[in-house]
């Protein structure tokens, strides 16, 4: 790993802690496809502390990048019981790491990814699912219960009650598709037309994580079963309809070859558990809209990555793999919209 990067992080962290530190381990993480993620450990005196630095990429999936909103949310939630990573520092100063970045404390656990195992099974066995699934549903309810006004999150832009939350999200992803400069496929066009006609109204405006799903959960395996220790990747955080998160987490996109929401619970059970824990209603009409919007959003993200790769602004070949994944997205989208037979698994 880049020695210079380690030295820069040593200076940055040392200045903030007011004590000399030494980076004893530094590694670029492979899991995140969007922001650049560096996991590092420092020695402060005789103590060792783990951190994660998230840096804006030059180009990528979620352009244009601005880390500050998610930093402000994570920083404000650092004392909340929700397992979000305590996030003490952010800087735009290019003298430090060339591009803006923030540093959060490293939480224990590993990140199960949304991919089936070699034998086709999902990442969790039945006992693990039974233990972890309800935790994930409850944590999401807790996230939606955060008093965003009291926390000062108005800077995220609060949609007015009514259809604005749904329409705003749809417009946001349509704009990203347009900005990619790549053609809209017929399956995507069909979904967009349907979404424009079916944007649902809601009065329930909450904090929305925006990417709450398998792949962004930190999990520790203990004797009593797995425990959710972290909710990661807040770069799509905004204010909106909480059912956007429920539908995203339950989307066929993240089932890892299982029929379960984020490979954990049957989608209906996941929504019901979230409803029970939150005291809110999992309105089927709104869930249906956000289930279709999930594909619009994912395809928009993939098109942004492809556009960045095609233009040469990123050399990350992981962006190019999206090009041959569209048929899989179209399959799941077709099943969700009903123009392909079968239920998405």
């Amino acid at each position, binding site marked *: 790993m880049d020695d210079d990067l380690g030295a820069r992080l040593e200076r940055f962290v040392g200045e903030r802690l007011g004590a000399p530190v030494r980076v004893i381990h530094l590694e670029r993480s492979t899991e995140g496809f969007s922001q650049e993620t560096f996991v590092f450990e420092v020695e402060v005196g005789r103590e060792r502390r783990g951190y994660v630095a998230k840096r804006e990429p030059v180009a990528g999936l979620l352009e244009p990048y601005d880390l500050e909103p998610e930093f402000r949310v994570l920083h404000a939630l650092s004392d909340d019981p929700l397992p979000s990573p305590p996030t003490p520092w952010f800087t735009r100063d290019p003298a430090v790491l060339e591009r803006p970045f923030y540093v959060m404390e490293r939480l224990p656990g590993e990140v199960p990814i949304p991919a089936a195992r070699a034998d086709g099974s999902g990442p969790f066995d039945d006992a693990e699912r039974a233990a972890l699934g309800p935790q994930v549903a409850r944590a999401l309810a807790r996230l939606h219960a955060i008093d965003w006004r009291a926390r000062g999150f108005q800077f995220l832009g609060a949609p007015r009650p009514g259809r604005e939350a749904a329409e705003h999200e749809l417009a946001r992803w349509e704009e990203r598709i347009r900005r990619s400069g790549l053609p809209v496929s017929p*399956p995507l066009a069909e979904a967009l037309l349907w979404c424009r*006609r079916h944007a649902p109204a809601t009065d329930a405006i909450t904090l929305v994580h925006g990417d709450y799903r398998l792949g962004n959960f930190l999990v520790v395996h203990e004797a009593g079963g797995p425990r959710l220790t972290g909710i990661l990747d807040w770069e799509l955080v905004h204010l909106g309809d909480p059912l956007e998160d429920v539908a995203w987490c339950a989307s066929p996109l993240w089932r890892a070859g299982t029929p379960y929401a984020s490979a954990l619970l049957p989608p209906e059970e996941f929504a019901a558990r979230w409803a029970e824990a939150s005291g809110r209603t999992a309105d089927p009409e709104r869930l249906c809209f956000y289930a279709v919007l999930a594909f619009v959003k994912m395809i928009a993200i993939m098109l942004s990555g492809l556009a960045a*790769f*095609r233009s040469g602004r990123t050399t990350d*070949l*992981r962006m*190019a*793999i999206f090009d*041959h994944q569209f048929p899989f997205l179209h399959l799941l989208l077709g099943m969700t919209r009903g123009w392909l*037979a079968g239920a998405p698994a």
Partner: protein
Amino acid sequence: MTIPLEALIDGAVRTLTEAVLPDVTSRFARGQLFAVVDVLRNLRDRLEVKAALHEAEAASAAAALERAAAALGREAAAARIAGALAAAPAGPPAERAAALRAALVAALETIDVLPPEVGDPARAAITEHLAAQTMRDLALLKPSLLGEISKG
């Protein structure tokens, strides 16, 4: 495919030389990697997507547009859809398939403003093609290495 093959190969070469090669220390492995880069660079200007794939897609899309126009009968929308179909170039296959994809998008937009009892049969003709095309595309998709890509 959204990315032209040449751009894909250029990107793969850039990744191998800029992101992978610096971390490969074994001389033999570096030699093999340079050989891969050499092969890719020389394949770059010799490859094209199989014409048969584009031809199958174009034939299916054209038939769907014909059925959609027929389902709309004397509606003005039928003439617009038929016009877009007629305007698609006869070849090369990749260009014809791309033009017909755009025509399908335009047809869906045209149908969307019609009353359901008028537009639904035409929409069904198009979604039938979308389903068939999705299955054709899926037949070419290899098992995903996303797990390996994510975990390294």
